[in-house]
């Protein structure tokens, strides 16, 4: 990778000052957290920053506060810290399942919550230095007429990437919010609005995080007492692979009826995809196979597969059924 300057601020204000610059706006100054994605981008010359702002020396960014009315996750907490957190495992098991499913133990020990949410897509055109794709400022999304096996079936266009994060669908299902800080101040964004569709926003970005901003924490409202959550990830390769599709579920069941459900799909769209149709099909219904199948049908309604990813339609249906079976067992 290209040589760079490494800034190790010891205070958040210093970091924000370093990011409130023209260089940060153009991507010449980038944020370094765990580096598990950024360093791969830099090795492929997908990113060629002149300077990195390392957040790991700033105190207070990695704490996990799981006990209160609101769960607060510092964006610098590692994926292993999430995976091993007993309290989180009790209150929001889907989050711990998702964290545990990421990459490998080696990557989880360094990768962070913020890094996982802000990682760039894995699309092989995007990651190829020789392919000047739409997302990199070029004219064409090459997956559209090309090798599209791992691309989007929902919400795609004009870019057809899928968002690779496992934590994102779960956090959307849990109704989480993100705290963003910059030199100008703090703002809060619902996770559901944090990720952007290429049809509605700057196609070269995946989130609303602006240059100069740091994702500081993610907050999860206390789940209802009788709420349960589940994350099911489907991979081509069981060891170390991104999801072909994944399902994040939260469910409130009363007696023999599903009172409400949140269904968020991963690996199928440029953003974590709220399957509202599936949610509606579950609400007020008994948790039976027939209900699950209806929900599955709704989940893929409107899907527009590309040449090689049509399989994601039955896959998502099947996966949602399996996830509901596991959660309601």
């Amino acid at each position: 990778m290209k040589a760079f300057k490494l800034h190790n601020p010891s205070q958040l204000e210093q970091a924000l000052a370093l990011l409130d610059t023209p260089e940060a706006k153009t991507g010449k100054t980038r944020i370094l957290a765990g580096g598990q994605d950024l360093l791969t981008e830099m090795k492929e010359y997908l990113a060629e920053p002149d300077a990195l702002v390392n957040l790991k020396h700033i105190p207070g960014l990695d704490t996990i506060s799981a006990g209160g009315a609101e769960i607060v996750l510092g964006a610098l907490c590692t994926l292993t810290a999430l995976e091993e957190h007993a309290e989180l495992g009790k209150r929001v098991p889907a989050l711990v399942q998702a964290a545990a499913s990421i990459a490998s133990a080696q990557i989880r020990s360094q990768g962070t919550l913020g890094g996982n949410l802000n990682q760039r897509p894995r699309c092989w055109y995007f990651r190829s230095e020789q392919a000047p794709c739409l997302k990199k400022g070029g004219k064409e999304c090459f997956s559209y007429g090309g090798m599209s096996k791992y691309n989007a079936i929902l919400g795609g266009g004009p870019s057809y990437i899928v968002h690779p994060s496992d934590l994102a669908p779960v956090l959307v299902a849990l109704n989480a919010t993100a705290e963003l800080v910059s030199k100008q101040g703090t703002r809060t964004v619902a996770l559901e609005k944090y990720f952007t569709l290429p049809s509605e926003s700057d196609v070269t970005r995946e989130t609303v995080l602006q240059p100069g901003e740091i994702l500081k924490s993610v907050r999860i409202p206390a789940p209802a007492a009788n709420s349960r959550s589940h994350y099911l990830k489907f991979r081509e390769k069981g060891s170390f692979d991104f999801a072909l599709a994944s399902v994040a579920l939260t469910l409130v069941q009363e007696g023999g009826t599903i009172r409400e459900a949140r269904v968020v799909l991963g690996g199928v769209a440029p953003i974590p995809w709220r399957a509202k149709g599936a949610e509606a099909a579950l609400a007020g219904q008994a948790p039976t196979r027939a209900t699950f199948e209806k929900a599955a049908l709704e989940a893929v309604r409107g899907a527009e597969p590309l040449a090689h990813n049509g399989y994601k339609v039955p896959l998502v249906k099947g996966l949602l059924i399996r996830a509901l079976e596991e959660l309601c067992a």
Partner: protein
Amino acid sequence: MSQTSDERGETPPDPEALSRRRFLRSAGGVAAGGVLVQGLLTSCETSTPAPAAKAAAPKPQSETLEGEIEIELSINGAQRKLKCEPRTTLLSALRNRCEPALTGTKEVCDRGNCGACTVHVDGRPALACLLLAVDLRGKKITTIEGLGSPEKLSALQQSFWTHDGQMCGFCTPGFVMSIQACLDKHPKASLEEIKRACSGNVCRCGTYPAVFEAALAVAKGGK
């Protein structure tokens, strides 16, 4: 999993102070021998942790590293001085900047996909190719060379040997490191836990079955 201080019935410590303590420990490595371009950290030149109460120390300045610098890393229990750039990965530092070179940690993909460069950082498995050497100051690094020697194999290495958990051997250090990290935290790991622990390691010769057997034998307390 360890209990939180809540669960132990203690007053939870101030998270800020905890993080500052962690930060101070990590900065201690810098003071011990690194030469920095700018901004020496003044309040962090000792390696004794600050007390939990907020210290009256002045706020340390930000540090910027650029070009060729000399740093000190703790590798296998010894302090090693080496010259590197900010962009030098730990993998490159171990293999090319240490004298003598530590080549037990292998370069196979340099992208985090294969686990051959697995080391331990503060007891956790990590990929040397996705770590910046300068970021490891003040951390405890263990490489395969630190786990045992041909004359004195660790229990896991001995078990690998007798079960034939290595063929060409190029993936072997990475597997040993991953599984050892797992056994360090779960001495009685199950087959599932062992598989998970090395799910980020690739073996082309196909030694997986023997590797699992070797690891299980140690987990079950035998040889």
